[in-house]
């Protein structure tokens, strides 16, 4: 225990040397908080090794026109139909999948297989968009000029939506896409 003959509030200028020993309760709390902070920090690298959900991805810059063209080729190759005027594409298992965000549409509609890994490339050809897979709740930022290639493995079948969750202009709230996952 340190010198305790006087105590003062935070609006009084402290006199003399204020670099004093820390009271025991405060010491206990600081120690707990410090250890907790180290655990918080360690959890992230640990999850990269042991966990299944990481935002790592294959990332590089891309010309928006080139990305759109690559997506068009992808659509042409694997198109199986159309929904609401948007092509439905069924890529082979394990392949690279391309998804364009643009004002105000996700292009194309994807049909995937459960339990199979795909590399999903996300980019925008105009402004920022937000990829939000609903109701799974997977969210990624989609930025013009950048290709974000994420390895994804659907673990459930069903009819999913892609909501845009980054403001992208007046039609933002109408920008909804679709992903089908089959067994």
């Amino acid at each position, binding site marked *: 225990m340190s010198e305790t003959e006087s*105590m003062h*509030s*935070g609006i009084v200028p402290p006199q003399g040397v204020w670099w004093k020993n820390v009271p025991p309760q405060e010491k206990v709390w600081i120690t707990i908080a410090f250890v907790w902070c180290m655990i918080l920090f360690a959890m992230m690298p640990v999850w990269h090794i042991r*966990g299944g959900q990481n935002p790592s991805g294959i990332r590089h810059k891309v010309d928006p026109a080139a990305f759109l063209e690559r997506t068009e080729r992808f659509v042409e190759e694997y198109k199986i139909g159309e929904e609401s005027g948007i092509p439905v594409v069924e890529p082979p298992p394990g392949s690279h999948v391309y998804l364009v965000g643009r004002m105000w549409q996700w292009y194309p509609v994807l049909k995937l297989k459960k339990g199979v890994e795909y590399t999903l490339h996300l980019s925008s050809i105009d402004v920022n968009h937000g990829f939000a897979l609903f109701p799974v*709740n997977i969210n990624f930022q989609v930025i013009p000029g950048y290709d974000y290639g994420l390895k994804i493995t659907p673990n459930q079948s069903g009819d999913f939506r892609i909501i845009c969750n980054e403001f992208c202009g007046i039609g933002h709230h109408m920008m909804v896409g679709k992903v089908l996952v089959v067994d």
Partner: protein
Amino acid sequence: MSGAIERLSSRFRTCAVTGLKVNKDSENLIKANAVIAIVCLLIGVTAAFGLVLTRWQTVHLLPAEMYYRFLTLHGMNMLIFFIIFFEMAILYFAGPVLLNARQPTPKLGWAAFGLMVIGMIMVNVMILMGKADVLFTSYPPLQAHPLYYLGVILFAVGALLATSLFFAALVVAKREKTYKGSVPLVTFGATTAAIIAVITLVHGAATYIPALLWSMNLIELDAQLYRLLFWALGHSSQQINVAAMVSVWYLLGGLTVGAVVLNEKVSRTAFVLYILFISMASAHHLLVDPGFGSAWKIWNTSYAMYLAVLASMVHGFTVPAGLEIGQRLRGFNAGKFEWLRKAPWGDPGFSGMVLSVVIFGFLGGITGVVIGTEQINIIVHNTMRLPGHFHATVAGGTALAFMAVTYYVLPLIFQKRIAFWKLAKLQPWIFGGGMSLMCMSMIYMGIFGVPRRHWDSSFSNAPFSVEFHPAVWISQASMGVGGLLAASGALLFVIIAVVTVFFGKPLTEQAIREGASGIPQGVLKLPAQLHEGEKVVAVHKKGAPGTMVLIMIFFACFVLYYFVNWKILSFLWKVG
């Protein structure tokens, strides 16, 4: 020469309550900045009503275009204008006033104020004219009118000038020996806020000057780089708020119950940690962006291993512990919690401060650390959990602390008795309670994947239907009720402050002696700020056992919420 000294000394008055020598130049600058802050708050609150009543799908008041415009207006006025004008007032108070010093170059202070007002008006006019429907973040390639960016730049230059006057005041006070010893903790905390403000405003220049040139078609702008720079401004500016808010906690603790500083070394070191690590928080917004690798994300999002979080956890202990020991020194020494039961809950300066600590810590702090975790951000980014988090920090935390301190600024600086005193006693509870309900509802909705910044929860014109979980509609209603309560609480605050400033009864020594209404208890009788003698030794030995219990409850909530989120994440599709 003696004439000059007389002129200078006539610029001071001695505060009847605190005994501080208050110079009139600083006082006038505090008044001007505080009044404009409240004007901006009023604009922000007006927009808030529109937003709540639109997001609540049952009401769905505004058309889409107006919704996004109001959202821009709300963001700029609340996050930038209201809060920074108020912080400038705090700097004029924590510098010259707390140190008994004169105001260095008051004319420059007025020039800075003028620039900030012009910038603020330009931005608001551009938004209202519909030339800047780009939301608070104005991410390119979404583009606003060049005058919008210019307005922000002028505002920032003004704020930078005003901040430099705070540093000048520190130098003047030191050189002219207006105080003995070291600067008080509150001034020290305000100094860290000012340093962070400089860092922030430099990033602001790096963000908005290129954006201005780009809006005039003079240069090209990379969308990802802008996001990096913008958030070095946008998040750091919230860290000015944190440092300023914590300083206000210490200030109000002293004024309301004579709270003590447990240990100057610990509290000051914690403030320094804010300066060292805080601009790294830009990364919180970029965790699921394509431009950065995981090593960069982990290092930056954790503020280099969470040392800034450590700082907040330290203040989260020392502030309530200081209150507890202050109360024990005033004789409320029985058991673990007599100090809390017998606290001046009817004093809005006290209740507002305590609610600010609780809302910031439990709702804002815990959720902030959790959603700023690299992988957990995948289930959070741009969902309603985001506004849920930052309304708890900025509104429930910072804005509420600023409201609470206003109940002391009005009598001490404006020398007025507070109008509508009975309502004023309720105001922090209405605002804090409403804000808490709204934040929790937003967070709950976000867990179901409801996007933020979104006009239409029915998705009626979308090519594919979206069906939210039924719980979402209940949360929307509770968000609506909470939001309306919070906005009403803020509006009530504006009315109380404006009526007090312009029509309030003057605070006289007689009114204080008689205990007239409209005067907070800390102004009626300022608690002892300095304690000496045997009592101190006994209380110091006992420490803060009540706070130890409270902080362990906080810690348990933190750990639980953190690991529940990892568990939820683990159910997701594999992604990486």
